[in-house]
């Protein structure tokens, strides 16, 4: 079906530059507000922070003496380095634990729960995650604390004679709470990719003589790899910047790198704090760039 004008077919003249530009602008102008917001309130602040990380503080005033001392101080101070290493280790352990829970849980949902109930169970996983983040961390004090449920349970069963303070204000408490907080992200990401997997492929592989572990490694794993990587990123990255959990249940033993950053900013030592923040930002951005092909952000945030 074609429309022929009275004068026959005409070869259109090359579109002049200004007309093309105008067309582009008509399409692109709605992008202006977000560009303004993200540039003014995100890119420029990050840029300023990079600049500050090379400046110094004198008498509680930031002065523009260019120096590397903030970074040198970080890399030569054993406490800072240890806290940083510990934060990365904590993030890695929490990621592994969340996946160890999320993979069998997602498998359970996809294979053993009827499609009708899957949505309900999934909703039940997300609901706690819609309630206050702060209050969910606080809720663990009611479990692990000296007057908490765990102590009460152990007292009632006679395993201990007096309430113990050992369950809270340490690294293990921080670990448990973080696994609790980030499990829903991991479950959602793994579920999203497992749900799309056709389990007939798995059976076909076994029919063709693959052992169960071979079928798992060569058929299932490659198919759900994007989901697993998304889950890892969505747990690992936020844990690197975790402040509330270490502050509320970590005590002095459980401090993470965010506590250091906040202490510097509280003491108006912006350059020193900025240097650590920049190091973490760089670390995260490198991770995101490496894994960007697998990252399915929409699966976690846009499920509505």
């Amino acid at each position, binding site marked *: 079906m074609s429309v022929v004008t009275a004068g026959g077919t005409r070869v259109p003249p090359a579109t002049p530059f200004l007309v093309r530009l105008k067309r582009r602008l008509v*399409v692109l102008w*709605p*992008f202006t*507000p*977000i560009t303004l*917001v*993200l540039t003014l*309130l*995100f890119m420029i*602040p*990050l840029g*300023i*922070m990079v600049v500050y990380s090379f400046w110094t503080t004198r008498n509680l005033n*930031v002065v523009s003496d260019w120096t590397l001392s903030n970074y040198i101080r970080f890399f030569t101070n054993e406490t800072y380095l240890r806290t940083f290493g510990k934060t990365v280790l904590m993030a890695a352990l929490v990621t592994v634990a969340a996946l160890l829970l999320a993979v069998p*849980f997602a498998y*359970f949902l996809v*294979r*053993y729960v*009827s499609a009708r109930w899957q949505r309900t*169970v999934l909703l*039940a996983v997300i*609901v706690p995650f819609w*309630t*206050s983040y*702060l*209050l*969910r961390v*606080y*809720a*663990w*004090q*009611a*479990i692990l*604390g*000296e*007057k*908490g*449920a765990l*102590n*009460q349970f152990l007292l009632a069963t006679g395993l201990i004679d007096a309430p113990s303070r050992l369950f809270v204000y340490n690294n293990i408490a921080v670990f448990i709470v973080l696994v609790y907080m980030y*499990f*829903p992200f991991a479950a959602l990401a793994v579920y999203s990719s497992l749900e799309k997997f056709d389990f007939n492929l798995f059976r076909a592989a076994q029919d063709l003589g693959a052992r169960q572990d071979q079928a798992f490694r060569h058929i299932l794993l490659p198919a759900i790899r994007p989901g697993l990587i998304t889950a890892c990123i969505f747990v690992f*990255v*936020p844990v690197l*910047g975790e*402040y509330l959990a270490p502050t509320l249940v970590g005590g002095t033993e459980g401090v993470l790198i965010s506590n250091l950053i906040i202490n510097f*900013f509280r003491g108006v030592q*912006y350059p020193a*704090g*900025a240097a650590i*923040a920049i190091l973490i930002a760089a670390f*995260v*951005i490198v991770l*995101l760039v490496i894994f*960007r092909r697998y990252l399915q*952000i*929409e699966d976690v*945030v*846009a499920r*509505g």
Partner: protein
Amino acid sequence: MDLLETMPVSKRAKQTRWAFRAFGCAVMGFLYIPIFFLVLFSFEDSKTVGFPIPGFSLRWYQAVLDNQALQDAVRNSLLVAALVAILATIIGTMAAFPLVRGNLRFPSVIRIFVTLPIMLPGILLGVALVTFLAGQLHVRLSLLTVIAGHLVFTTPYVVLIVASRLQGFPRALEWAAADLGASPARTLRHIILPLIAPAIMAGALISVTISLDEFIVTFFTIGSQLTLPIYIYTQIKFGVTPEVNAVATLLLVATLGLLAAGGLLGAVRSARAAGRPKEES
């Protein structure tokens, strides 16, 4: 009846099924036990949170009702969340169109630009904002700076949600409208917006929830007026009473109510759209 249940299965498969069910229940328990105790302690007739529970009362709910500072914090939070949601929804929805349809030159760069604010840990945005606003520009921190901060990481959510809806949008409908003489503005108003409305609503709802709950960015950008999470944080840090648990319980009920209302609304709408009375879902 579940298909899996009607199939003849071996004993081992049955055991595996029970193992997975038990595991699933354990995980759900792990998710809900802390919330159970959080609620339980709110009814406790004692000045400290936890066991032993001397008795039950509603006195901490009364305390919430009498607490002026708390109510101010709630009002501030609602104000911030409402403004953030309106701005983020408008800005985000606008941005979604060129993102999906604009044939952008560097799609991956733009994607990183839009998603980085939600992928970076919040503390980094917080310290960057305080460095820029307070350190460099000497802006006085207030609820306005809080709103500015929240805007940065709520807008990307709206963009992602609306864009994913636009991706599957049937362009033929727009062309039909244009063929029938509708102006682009009219097509937008009568064809496109009604069809992507659920995504816009979802984006607005997510913005409200995230803004209401946000702690770390608010912590850096806030002035003398407190939002609810900051108020609760100071309560937890300095002398906690079951009043915090009462606030938590009320918030939980409010969130569940909102979710149920939203779900009900969605169910009614989709049933109506399908042209049949609402079924049990």
